[in-house]
């Protein structure tokens, strides 16, 4: 021991103990740091696409296959001459869903989202993760089964042939996407060709963005919605309690004649069906697609509640999905009104889908699905099951996202949308979507682009109304009025789906 304090100097022993304590704390910190990387972040790091192990594995290891709902192969592997693994896409029509996996340009679509599962480095089962360390072969590629039904996908692609546009078809009760088409599209087999892929990619990239095949219009294309957006306004009005289905606006019949003036801006209906008729309610207003009725609903609801209810449907941020999505918007958000509207004029125009409303087809299919599913919005999903080569299985179950509307309010909108297809006046707009013998609901849209060429042709709908099995959103860009193009496509798709034996 240190015998004596020499000349009044402090005890060394005490100081050493304190230093020892500090050192122990430092080492505990190091241990925690190590734990962070090896436990908390381990899974993310081990499956990071930049991880050299993953990079190497993606080159030389066969990937899991991608299958449609009935097990038809959408993507599998062939060995290249140099031992590298090349992807093969027997059904290029699913390119907007599968994306591609190239040795040179990386991955896109589901190939990107589920890269680590397809490579076989991730299974989501912690116990198995631990056991894997004791195996000589660390890879366990996973086959991914999609909810996409190839026959419907084909049908939708055929119907959209030669047009720019997109189709999203979804099971309202489960949120499973059964068809997702974006046109123009590309052939992933040509893109990943080691010899000619480069030229093909350059050709695709050389096209202007509004006709680029590499843009997935269904999830990332943002379009003016026109009248299909009125369903969003109806949801906001009913949901917020601002209106009842029977609510009428006494001035509206007169305004149908002369126009509805909002802060100096005049709103008119695109037709004279509302003239010399009793005031419109939700049903008749939706059946004849009255801009004036819906402008009133929007103004009554108010900008804050309007933006809020749109957000409940998924507006304002990218929809969580298996593919990258773009956020839909009800306004550019730069104004001073609550919710970001500039003024009441913008709000009134947004209420019938003009102004600065921009939506993705996926978002609009969710609007239709939420109404069809009695107000409950299911999370959209593309994957139903995964099965690894070693037999580890994982089911992806349907998942409710939010309840948007009460069943009563949803029922009112369902009836309004059924009138829009089957009603005497509604049939002039969306009658083309009627599935013979099946109660059908829908809403057409004609999105004016400010005088720049033809309008976008829109349709959203679902069938059968009493127990919906499919909801669709169809857009044909600058193809004309809703009734002319998108409506019949939507009707044919619903009919085809309901007629399929599954």
């Amino acid at each position, binding site marked *: 021991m240190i015998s004596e304090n020499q000349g009044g100097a402090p005890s060394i022993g005490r100081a050493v103990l304190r230093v020892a304590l500090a050192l122990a704390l430092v080492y505990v910190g190091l241990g925690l740091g190590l734990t962070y990387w090896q436990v908390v972040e381990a899974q993310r790091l081990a499956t*990071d696409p930049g991880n050299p192990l993953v990079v190497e594995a993606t080159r030389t290891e066969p990937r899991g296959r991608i299958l449609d709902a009935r097990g038809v192969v959408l993507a599998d592997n062939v060995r290249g001459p140099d031992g590298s693994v090349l992807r093969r896409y027997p059904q290029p029509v699913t390119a907007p869903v599968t994306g591609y996996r190239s040795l040179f340009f990386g991955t896109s679509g589901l190939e990107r989202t589920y890269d680590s599962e397809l490579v076989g480095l991730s299974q989501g089962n912690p116990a198995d993760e631990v056991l894997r360390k004791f195996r000589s072969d660390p890879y366990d590629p996973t086959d991914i089964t999609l909810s996409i039904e190839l026959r419907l996908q084909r049908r939708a692609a055929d119907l959209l042939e030669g047009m720019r546009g997109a189709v999203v078809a979804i099971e309202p009760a489960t949120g499973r996407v059964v068809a997702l088409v974006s046109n123009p599209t590309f052939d992933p087999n040509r893109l990943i060709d080691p010899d000619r892929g480069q030229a093909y990619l350059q050709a695709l990239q050389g096209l202007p963005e509004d006709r680029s095949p590499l843009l997935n219009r269904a999830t990332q294309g943002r379009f003016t919605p026109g009248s299909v957006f009125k369903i969003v306004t109806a949801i906001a009005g009913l949901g917020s309690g601002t209106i009842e289905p029977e609510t009428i606006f006494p001035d509206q019949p007169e305004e149908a004649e002369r126009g509805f003036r909002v802060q100096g801006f005049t709103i008119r209906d695109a037709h004279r069906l509302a003239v010399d008729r009793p005031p419109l309610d939700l049903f008749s207003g939706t059946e004849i697609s009255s801009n004036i009725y819906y402008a009133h609903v929007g103004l009554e609801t108010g900008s804050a509640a309007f933006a809020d209810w749109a957000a409940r449907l998924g507006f304002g941020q990218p929809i969580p999905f298996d593919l990258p999505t773009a956020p839909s918007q009800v306004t550019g958000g730069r104004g001073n009104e609550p919710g970001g509207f500039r003024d009441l004029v913008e709000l009134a125009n947004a209420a019938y889908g003009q102004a600065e409303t921009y939506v993705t087809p996926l978002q609009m299919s969710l609007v239709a699905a939420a109404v069809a599913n009695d107000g409950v919005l299911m999370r959209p999903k593309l994957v139903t099951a995964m099965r690894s080569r070693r037999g580890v299985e994982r089911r992806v179950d349907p998942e409710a996202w939010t309840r948007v509307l009460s069943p009563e309010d949803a029922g009112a909108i369902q009836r309004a949308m059924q009138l829009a297809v089957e009603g005497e006046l509604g049939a002039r707009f969306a009658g083309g979507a009627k599935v013979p013998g099946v109660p059908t609901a829908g809403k057409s849209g004609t999105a004016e682009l400010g005088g720049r060429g033809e309008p976008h042709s829109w349709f959203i709908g679902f069938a059968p109304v009493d127990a919906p099995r499919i909801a669709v959103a169809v857009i044909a860009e600058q193809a004309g009025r809703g009734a002319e193009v998108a409506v019949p496509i939507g009707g044919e798709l619903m009919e085809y789906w309901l007629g399929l034996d599954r």
Partner: protein
Amino acid sequence: MTYAVAHRRWRIRPRLRTREFLLLVAAGGALAVGWVSLNSTLEGDAISYGDPTLLVAYLGLLLVLHLAFVLTGRRTDEILLPVTGLLAGLSLLLMARLPQDTATQSFGRFELGLAPLQLFWITLAFVLLGILAITVRSDGWLRYYKYTWAAIGVGLLLLVFVFGEETNGQRLSLRVGPIAGQPSELLKIILVVFLAGYLADNRALLARTSSRLGPIPLPPVPYLLPMVAMWGLALAVILVQKDLGGALLFFLVFLAILYIATLRLSYVLLGTVLFFAGSAFLYTLFAHVRGRVDIWLDPFADPQGQGFQIVRALFAFGRGGVLGTGLGAGLPEVGGNPAIPALHTDFVFTALAEELGLLGGLAILFLYLVIAERGLRIAIGAADDFRALLAAGLTLVIVVQAAIIIGGNVRLVPLTGITLPFVSYGGSSLVANGIIIGLLLALSDRGVEPPPPPRQTRRERLGAGLRRVAGRVEEAVS
């Protein structure tokens, strides 16, 4: 040093060191299992022993050291040798599985690859360790020549500065014949010796408050000067060498020793403030400092370029997980290139944590804590201030250095290019750390020799000399 000779009684009486023996057997067993595991993984699934020459030679070396300790019978610490032996053994396992041309060295006709070369340096380090642990019985040669040691240290640095070779943008190595060494590794020992000597003499004074800098009480300024000058010089030259890790190590050890000697937290606080001020200064002034810090803050900003090394290291941690991939199953190479640049020097901890997992990584941390515990215990039990400060300082050099590089590996602090003691590849580092453990072992022996008496002052010596001369004259005359 007549008094030292007078005290040196070489009564060599063998004494069993059971604890050390058992611990060595355990460490050796663990290393043997590791060796079989490593070779079995590398060869395929069957049990394989590979070519066990390296391991056998190394275990033999440990046994010889142990026997030498037993035969010479000193009552030295019995834990330090097994712990350092295990660390160096892990190093050998790691070097044996890395590409052998990572580092080569020719001795005449012989050319050694990475693992044999590392074993050569380990052997050299452990032989030095043994010699020091057995023979050092007096500390006078360290205690009384602190300024000489300081001068030697500065001289070494100047030599490096003038004749040194650059590796990785750092001017660190000095080549003598075929061997290149890094004198800054020795400098850290010299710094500790100097600080211990100076503070042991003056710590009572330094602990007193006689002047103030604003609110901060300071000791008599003249007594701080030699120390600060020594430290500042070392720091300045190291900054010129761009060895940031070394500078940080010096600084932290300096502060810790100063605190131990004076028990004054204000020095530590002042030092910390100075440190952060200096860091900010260096950050704005030197691009490579800025680069290091930026990579540290966000390595994923440039994962293929600047952040490559650290990002790759993080991937390795993730791959290891809790249980690790197993020895030999890590990923040292990707497509013929090292998975992590400078793995064998800067990222040995990462490599071991990948293969041995979180459990192995924590075990390695624990080994360094054991070294800290033994070393600081030796300091507390030391016979006088100099030995206490020396033991504490030497211990801190190893443990703080390990903390800095491990902290860099796990991204708690910016990465610096210093070695992990006993594990990283590198002769100078191994030899310096061997010397440190050897000195610690020698200091742990409390049975042999009391500390030397305070040296006579010049006046006393003069007086004694005069008296002696006078005595002779007296004799002659009578």
